[in-house]
């Protein structure tokens, strides 16, 4: 942090002009208040990352401590040129995140619109819709994997069979779709909360006026609600991306990244290398690559964020 140093001037130095001295010291007060959180975040997140960088230049499989040693860029070269899964995994990650975020937003919008009208039992319906967000991800993943989607004893395929069709084997025929479905089930309620907040900030006068002008419910939704919600959807998209890209539990518990590498995302790939193959060197190299790629994506997201903040200041 390159904060310009003003000459040290404690706030108490000029009691005669409290406002003036406050202003002078404001940057320092601001900095002082920010520092503890900032230092904590840097220590906890960056210190292990330094170690990751060191390990990425090492050959180190936990099971073969005898072979440990520095190997330069070998791990990076292997991943970028010889690992057959690497590029497929990148594509998977994009599909996974974009698909899950967009579907969560769309469903969240639907849920929010549904409960933003008065009807008997609205509170109960809203409670039911919020619940998946409260469910432990590990419990959600296991319930879906076993009781919902299992090919032989799952309820979903049984329901499909009731209408005379043969349901697919979800986790092997549509593994990515299945994993995304569970993510969406948990995150659509979160989007609903944000969008509901947005909807409820629309003034009733505007709605009323529209209705007086003879707008149908549909017109009201598309002409008034949706434009107003745009900022809220951006926010939901942003937070959703940040959280969903990290979602490992459902992949870990439902598919183990398979079949093949069909549901392996980058974070899961890193995890697999380090924890299932015990290949610390390549896992670390992959971690560094993922972080570099994340920085690119973050930069893009930040632009979006910047625009949102700007609009707010305006």
């Amino acid at each position, binding site marked *: 942090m390159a904060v310009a140093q003003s000459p040290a001037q404690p706030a108490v130095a000029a009691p005669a002009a409290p406002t003036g001295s406050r202003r002078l010291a404001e940057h320092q007060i601001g900095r002082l208040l920010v520092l503890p959180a900032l230092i904590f975040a840097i220590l906890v997140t960056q210190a292990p990352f330094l170690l990751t960088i060191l390990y990425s230049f090492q050959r180190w499989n*936990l099971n073969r401590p005898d072979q440990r040693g520095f190997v330069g860029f070998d791990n990076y070269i292997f991943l970028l040129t010889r690992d057959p899964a690497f590029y497929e995994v990148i594509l998977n990650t994009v599909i996974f995140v974009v698909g899950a975020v967009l579907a969560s937003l769309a469903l969240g919008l639907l849920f929010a619109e549904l409960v933003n009208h008065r009807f008997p039992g609205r509170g109960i319906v809203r409670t039911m819709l919020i619940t998946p967000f409260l469910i432990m991800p590990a419990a959600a993943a296991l319930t879906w994997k076993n009781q919902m989607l299992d090919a032989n004893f799952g309820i979903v395929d049984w329901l499909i069979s009731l209408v005379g069709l043969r349901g697919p084997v979800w986790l092997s025929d549509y593994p990515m779709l299945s994993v995304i479905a569970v993510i969406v089930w948990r995150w659509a309620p979160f989007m609903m909360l944000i969008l509901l907040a947005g909807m409820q900030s629309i003034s009733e006068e505007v709605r009323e006026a529209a209705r007086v002008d003879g707008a149908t419910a549909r017109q009201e939704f598309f002409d008034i609600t949706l434009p107003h919600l745009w900022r809220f959807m951006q926010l939901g998209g942003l937070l959703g991306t940040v959280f969903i890209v990290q979602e490992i539990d459902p992949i870990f518990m439902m598919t183990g990244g398979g079949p093949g590498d069909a549901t392996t995302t980058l974070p899961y790939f890193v995890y697999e290398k380090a924890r299932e193959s015990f290949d610390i060197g390549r896992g670390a190299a992959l971690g560094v690559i993922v972080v570099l790629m994340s920085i690119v994506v973050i930069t893009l997201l930040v632009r979006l964020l910047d625009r949102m903040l700007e609009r707010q200041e305006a």
Partner: protein
Amino acid sequence: MLRRRLLTGVMTAAVVAATMVPFSLTSRAQTPAVEPNTEISGTIDVAMVANPQMVALQELVESGAFNEAYPNITVNLTVLPENEIRQTITQDVTTQSGQFDVFTIGPFEVPLWAEQGWLEEVGAAAEANPDYDLADVFESMKAGLTYEGGLYALPFYGESAMTFYRTDLFEEAGLEMPERPTWTQIAEFAAALDSDAVSGVCLRGLPGWGEMGAPLGTVINAFGGRWYDENWVAQLNDEDSARAIRFYIELLQNYGPEGAVGNGFTENETLLIQGQCAMWYDATSAAELITDPAINPDYEQVGFAYGPSDKLPTGNWLWSWNFAMAANSDAKDAANAFMQWATSTAYVDAIVAFDGGWGRAPTGARASVYENPSYQERAADFAEIVLNSINEANPNEPTEEPVPYTGGQFVRIPEFQQLGNDVTQIFASALVGDMEIDAAIEEANALADQVAIDAGYQE
């Protein structure tokens, strides 16, 4: 709960009587109040796989049974599913972090970890304890846990592999399962029995070296194939190996259940119990589960046969869950006491008394269990097959042609966990039809070669 409390009392008496005999060997078993061992003290952290036998052990420990015997030892148990606990233990041991003093591991890890100096030798102490009766433990089990003459783990329960089938379905179809079937016969039966409602045969399709990798490895062995030749050149695309892999995948594709790629032991067990699988080839430890009326109401419909043969009479499946001790444990006496208590003959009696049955008792590790009249009665249909399968399996010479490695359903090299996981993921792709089987075999073979080169085995 009342039943449990009563049983706890009975069991406690049995354990105390049988295990705690530092003083008078003669008064054993008759004296109700044997002095507990207060000399050994300490706190030990134990990591266990969440299989029913270990869960039973945990319940027994939490009921206070172990502390009746060793009041000054505190035992903290960590129980997690197999995949999770394996990663946790491996990471703890290989980084020497010392979270656990005692843990359950398999014969795959024991010699490798002993070689690295990560495990404590536990055979000598067991040998020295006259009540432990180390000679009662199967030689074949001990062989997989030995490194340079030392025994580095104590077997809790063990297994080979066998064929389970639904006698009702076989009867209906007018078929008869031979006691020792061949894989060709299994395929014929599967074709005859497969229908919309019933899958002809169930095998593990779930990727993972300990999942699909285990039965597939033994089919490769039985078919005369091997993972590597003596010079560590990969042999998965060799004629016999490729024939085995193709057979395995096609058998599952043609006659296997829906979603076979998600099926491991439990899923297949469930399918067989539900009458949705006509045959199932897997670990012998399933026999006790699927003949337990509480688990399987149709337990009388289950038939048993040996593991199928092809060029070799057996696939040489041999596995055991064993207690091993970290070399850096700071409570070695307490750890030894716990390990010996958990793997003793007295423990078997205690858990049978605790549960009121053999359902969760550890078997397949000690010969005395198979001489126990109550077990012989309980396991009349399969005990002999299990016993013979364990004795016949020879994981130290698992293949028709010579190999540079040991292990029946695995290749005992540190790199195999990754290799086995990656290879079975490739075969899973082929199983669901994302990939041609031949292409999958070639890719797996190239991967196996690369691993041998990277590890420095192959010149």
